[in-house]
């Protein structure tokens, strides 16, 4: 069923009796050409692009819970392409371009809103770094604008520009950045993939791989063995666990990132603002809630909830830069488990096992990457060659010393 304004009016006039389920709930078939493990944003996008761009239709997505229950439905919905390094920026700009055409492409309202993102500057050194980053963005075809303190005061009058420790000295803006309704991304890709023949199998956990003579023949699941020509894994925070079934140890740790939402308010915040120096970022959802967050808790965890020191730290950061936040009440908070990689950048690659492919290491920034990650992983699975924008995301970059370390932190996942 195609969704359109006309359809909404027609259904309104006929008692909404014509709507059908957005995707089927099939039982698994004995075998597929390609099995994707993980029904998060990346797994569903991979299936969607396999079917829509690479003509693969015997594809299944296997999800242990329900689709959208992982990080794709837990993140703070920010999209942007403001990266510095060569391995990253072309990929994230490709992703932003896909976001710009996504809703028409998959015929679903994902509320892609390019309301802009602003990174605040507090010192000369930070200004130099952001100018460099802005230039790298422009060289890669993205947009970037350096704002003065006066421009910031005019556009964001509620910011505390005179904070004694972190006075605001300017900002780097990307006007094409913004937010997207995160669950709708999972649902839109799921519906688009399903309508092109992909089986989405929920409540089915992959418990192992069947590997014979160095070749992966399929996955063991709680619904039995499912054969596969190729298996693509995209399970975010569960990456190390899943790949341990194939005897792999990944360059990754799992950490929790918390998110916070205030009660609904009238529009007060025009775009996304990041106060990196104070470990705080914020945007306002279309429902009116202020959506904000900060740092990860810092130690390995698989519990999808965080501890209180980070709550305090995030709220302090918010109050320092955005004092009117103190008048709002916190409504909800939660956590998601992220695959923090050793250099803060992702991996989209084949493994040493024939027919077994891996996508992960997205850290706290994989939501914005969803379209490009799905596209690039579909490309890899269909053609056995890396997508042009993802050639740097290989396993061997650690062995070869070619890390993509945006923050320059070294092999400490909790610092990226």
């Amino acid at each position, binding site marked *: 069923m195609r969704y359109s304004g006309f359809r909404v009016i027609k259904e309104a006039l006929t008692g909404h009796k014509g709507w059908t389920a957005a995707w089927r709930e099939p039982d698994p078939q004995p075998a597929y050409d390609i099995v994707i493990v993980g029904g998060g944003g990346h797994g569903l996008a991979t299936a969607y692009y396999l079917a829509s761009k690479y003509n693969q239709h015997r594809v299944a997505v296997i999800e242990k819970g329900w689709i959208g229950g992982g990080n794709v439905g837990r993140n703070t919905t920010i999209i942007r392409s403001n990266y510095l390094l060569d391995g990253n920026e072309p990929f994230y700009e490709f992703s932003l371009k896909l976001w710009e055409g996504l809703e028409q492409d998959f015929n679903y309202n994902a509320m892609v809103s390019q309301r802009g993102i602003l990174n605040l500057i507090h010192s000369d050194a930070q200004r130099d770094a952001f100018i460099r980053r802005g230039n790298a963005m422009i060289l890669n075809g993205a947009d970037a604008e350096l704002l003065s303190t006066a421009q910031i005061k005019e556009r964001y009058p509620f910011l505390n520009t005179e904070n004694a420790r972190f006075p605001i000295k300017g900002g780097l803006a990307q006007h094409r950045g913004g937010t997207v309704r995160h669950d709708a991304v999972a649902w839109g890709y799921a519906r688009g993939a399903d309508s092109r023949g992909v089986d989405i199998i929920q409540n089915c956990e992959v418990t192992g791989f069947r590997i014979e003579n160095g070749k992966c023949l399929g996955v063991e699941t709680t619904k039995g063995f499912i054969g596969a020509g190729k298996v693509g894994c995209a399970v975010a925070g*569960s990456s*190390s666990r899943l790949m341990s079934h194939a005897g792999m*140890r990944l360059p990754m740790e*799992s950490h929790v990132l918390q998110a916070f939402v205030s009660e609904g308010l009238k529009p007060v915040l025009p775009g996304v603002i990041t106060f990196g120096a104070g470990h705080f970022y914020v945007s306002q959802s279309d429902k009116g809630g202020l959506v904000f967050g900060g740092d990860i808790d*810092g*130690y390995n965890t698989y*519990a999808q909830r965080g*501890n209180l020191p980070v709550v305090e730290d995030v709220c302090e950061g918010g109050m320092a830069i955005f004092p009117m936040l103190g008048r709002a009440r916190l409504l909800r908070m939660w956590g998601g488990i992220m695959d923090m990689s050793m250099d803060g950048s992702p991996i989209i690659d084949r493994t040493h096992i024939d027919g077994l492919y891996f996508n992960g290491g997205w850290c706290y920034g994989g939501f914005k990457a969803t379209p490009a990650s799905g596209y690039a992983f579909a490309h890899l699975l269909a053609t056995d060659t890396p997508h042009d924008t993802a050639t740097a995301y290989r396993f061997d970059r650690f062995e070869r010393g070619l890390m993509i370390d945006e923050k320059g932190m070294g092999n400490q996942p909790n610092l990226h």
Partner: protein
Amino acid sequence: MLTLQCPYCGVDADETELSPGGEAHLKRFGPGSTDEEFEDYLFARQNPKGVHFERWRHAYGCGKWFLAARCTMTLEVFGTYSAQTTEPPQTIKDAITAKRPGWTWGTLS
């Protein structure tokens, strides 16, 4: 709030007093090792859901590094111990076995 007892100064330290340092009991490979061993040592981690041995520094206290055994699923702490050891003391292993029979960690159990 995660609280760990520093085995050096005996203080029950809140996590705000501590710095996490990642997986413990890594076998160090340096000059003379193969590229693969060196890569593994620097980058590959077990990252289990369950029993985890890890390094901590009593950063805002006595400043010393120590080790802890913790569950990454329940956030339960099994115990802390000195960093001057290549494997957890028997008391820690017993404390874990009491709660997680059949646990393993690399070649340890």
